[in-house]
């Protein structure tokens, strides 16, 4: 191996890092290390001038290894890979030390944070010494797309791609298209009819020559990699093999079951209904109590199952506006009724929403504010002396008074939660879930529809609770991404794969079943294991299983990691500080 000539760059990230880590001191110290040719600190390494600094140094000083200590590699590793390429260096001769997310942002003692930064960078320098150039490979893209879920998001994505002339397989587990939107009467805040929007889309999907539709169908695990996936779908007793290049997951969500919230008596009190059940009443045009009467007092309770650590900490996002929509619809349908909105906080962001709140508040609707964390309203059956069905005890935060609100009908604005089979689908297509079982996007801000598995996109409410416009935007965004990749024709695949040294492999076959992607097979003739580098996703589990040391996990080799450990725990720079 060539002698390492390492360039080290310590980023200030404005004050984000520099405030807590003495970057100038760190970069000076690092210059003393063997093989470190250049060590610099700079305001923003990720900026164009920052990258140019690296490129210039590489060219002028013949650097062959680069360490950037800055933010998380999850954020800017690729940025610097590109800079490396610009300078004519293989991008894998690079390592990042995460001194922002995992150092300056989480510590309060400047001296300790500075020491830790040195240690992390020493680890990175030690690791990069052993890095090797890896050649990028690309594979052709199968232009067909699999879309899982036939709700508004799935339908939109399907049409977007199919209209561009590309084939779509649309798989829906129920017997009809439309998803949750199909159950909704009017949308907030502009009271458009959902059916008028949805039905033509469904019609078009069913008849589209580029869309192959599979209803009442489930998918098995998808194998392969971006550009070349395959799976088996199951429809009744039939199994169909599909091959496709990209996957859009649009599996939507389900609504929260409020039966577990004792205060609300759902399931016991017949006139306590969920928002979904009320939506059905609206669709049928019949707002009635269980006994068949027109309700004279209607209460709408917000945040049922949302924004409460006992259920879901997140905001379900659409319920406040839906509740306001209900108040408006109730006011039209029952002009004489008393309408109460019991809310915790009014979440009215988005186009036209605050305006809807204002308009609703002028329609003789009583707003009461309760404490969502500790003091939920309590619904009880009213005595027979009252001429209404229920009483809701609410500690109203606005007036500071506990009031009993009469109600004939109570609508619980139930939370939206991840699908019960979200996990199954996650496994089938290889996406990750966050703690609340919604799927995680690749980057919350900069890459909101891609996932960490290349070629798999998440759109609509399977990613987080969403309204229709957001679901549609995501669907179109994912479709655009996929169409772009199809039009490019090929895609770069993982190069940090495992590789078997055939001169060492003894053929024990311990590795073969360890691989979750069946990427390892046994070559009977050579009597060695062989890694299919296209199928390999680079997890490295086979490398750590191989007792012979014959499998190398590229970019995370034993030598690289052992060397990183040595650097991390090295005391060479500690003395300077003391």
């Amino acid at each position, binding site marked *: 191996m060539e002698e390492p000539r390492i360039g080290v760059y310590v980023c200030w990230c404005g004050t984000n890092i520099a405030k807590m880590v003495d970057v100038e001191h760190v970069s000076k110290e690092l210059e003393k290390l063997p093989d470190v040719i250049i060590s610099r600190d700079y305001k923003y390494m990720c900026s164009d001038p920052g990258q140019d600094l690296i490129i210039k140094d590489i060219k002028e000083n013949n650097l062959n290894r680069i360490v950037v200590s800055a933010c998380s590699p999850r954020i800017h590793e690729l940025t610097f890979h590109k800079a490396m390429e610009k300078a004519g260096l293989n991008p894998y001769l690079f390592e990042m030390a995460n001194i922002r*997310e995992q150092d300056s942002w989480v510590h309060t003692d400047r001296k300790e944070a500075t020491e830790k930064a040195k240690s992390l960078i020493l680890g990175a320098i030690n690791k990069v010494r052993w890095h090797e150039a890896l050649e990028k490979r690309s594979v052709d893209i199968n232009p067909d797309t699999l879309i899982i879920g036939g709700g508004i998001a799935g339908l939109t994505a399907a049409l977007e791609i199919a209209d561009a002339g590309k084939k779509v397989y649309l798989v829906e587990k129920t017997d009809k298209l439309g998803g949750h939107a199909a159950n909704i009467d009017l949308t907030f805040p502009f009271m458009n009819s959902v059916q008028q929007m949805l039905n033509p889309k469904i019609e078009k999907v069913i008849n589209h020559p580029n869309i192959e539709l599979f209803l009442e169908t489930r998918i098995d695990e998808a194998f392969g990699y971006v550009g070349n996936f395959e799976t088996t779908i199951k429809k009744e007793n039939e199994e169909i093999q599909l091959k496709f290049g990209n996957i859009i997951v649009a599996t939507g969500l389900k609504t929260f079951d409020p039966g577990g919230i004792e205060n609300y008596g759902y399931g016991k009190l017949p006139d306590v209904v969920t928002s979904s059940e009320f939506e059905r009443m609206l669709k049928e045009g019949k707002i009635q109590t269980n006994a068949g009467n027109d309700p004279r007092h209607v209460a709408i309770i917000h945040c049922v199952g949302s924004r409460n650590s006992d259920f879901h900490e997140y905001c379900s996002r659409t319920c406040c506006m839906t509740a306001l929509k209900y108040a408006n619809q109730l006011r039209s349908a029952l002009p004489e009724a008393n309408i109460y909105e019991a809310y915790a906080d009014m979440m009215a962001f988005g186009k036209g929403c605050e305006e809807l709140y204002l308009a609703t508040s002028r329609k003789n609707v009583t707003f009461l504010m309760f404490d969502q964390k500790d003091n939920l309203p309590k619904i009880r059956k009213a005595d027979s002396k009252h001429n209404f069905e229920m009483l809701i005890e609410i500690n109203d935060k606005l007036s500071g008074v506990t009031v009993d609100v009469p109600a004939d009908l109570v609508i619980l604005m139930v939370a939206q939660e991840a699908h019960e089979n979200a996990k199954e689908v996650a496994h089938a297509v290889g996406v990750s879930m*966050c703690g609340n079982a919604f799927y995680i996007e690749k980057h919350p801000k900069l890459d909101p529809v891609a996932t960490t*598995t290349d070629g798999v996109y998440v759109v609509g409410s399977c990613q987080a609770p969403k309204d229709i416009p957001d679901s549609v935007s995501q669907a179109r965004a994912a479709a655009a991404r996929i169409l772009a990749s199809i039009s490019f024709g090929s895609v770069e695949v993982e190069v940090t794969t495992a590789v078997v040294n055939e001169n060492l492999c003894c053929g024990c076959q311990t590795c073969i079943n360890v691989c979750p992607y069946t990427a390892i097979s046994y070559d009977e003739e050579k009597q060695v294991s062989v890694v299919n580098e296209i199928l390999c996703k680079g*997890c490295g*589990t086979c*490398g*750590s*299983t191989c007792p012979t040391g014959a499998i190398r996990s590229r970019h995370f080799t034993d030598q690289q990691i052992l060397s990183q450990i040595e650097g991390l725990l090295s005391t060479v720079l500690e003395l300077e500080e003391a």
Partner: protein
Amino acid sequence: MSYQPKIVSFLCNWCSYTGADLAGTSRMKYAPNVRIIRVMCSGRIEPTFVLKAFREGADGVLICGCHPGDCHYHEGNYKCLRRYYLLQKYIQQMGLKKERLRLEWISASEGKQFAELADEYTESIKELGPCKVKEVMEVLT
């Protein structure tokens, strides 16, 4: 300054490392003793790394992976779990306290849990005091 243990932490890229990043973006504060090494999957972590960390002076080794069933690579974390138990038995035989090696599951959304874990683990290693492996291994007697 009081005794500051050195803790090496191996984190899988998809869940735990992301969780640790989240602790950062959320500006949570935790002890500076934990030094993180990123691997793609907890299934990549092998006993050699852990032993090497002790040999080079780590007072504790903290391994974090995706929660069972949530592994980005399906089952790598189970491989890690199996190795962890055997390694636990071995290091205790070698005279190390079992608390010096710990395995926890941290998801990508558990920044808070990671920060708390880092603090709590650092405290538990402080209670144990310095690990003598490096000292013992360096001097042949």
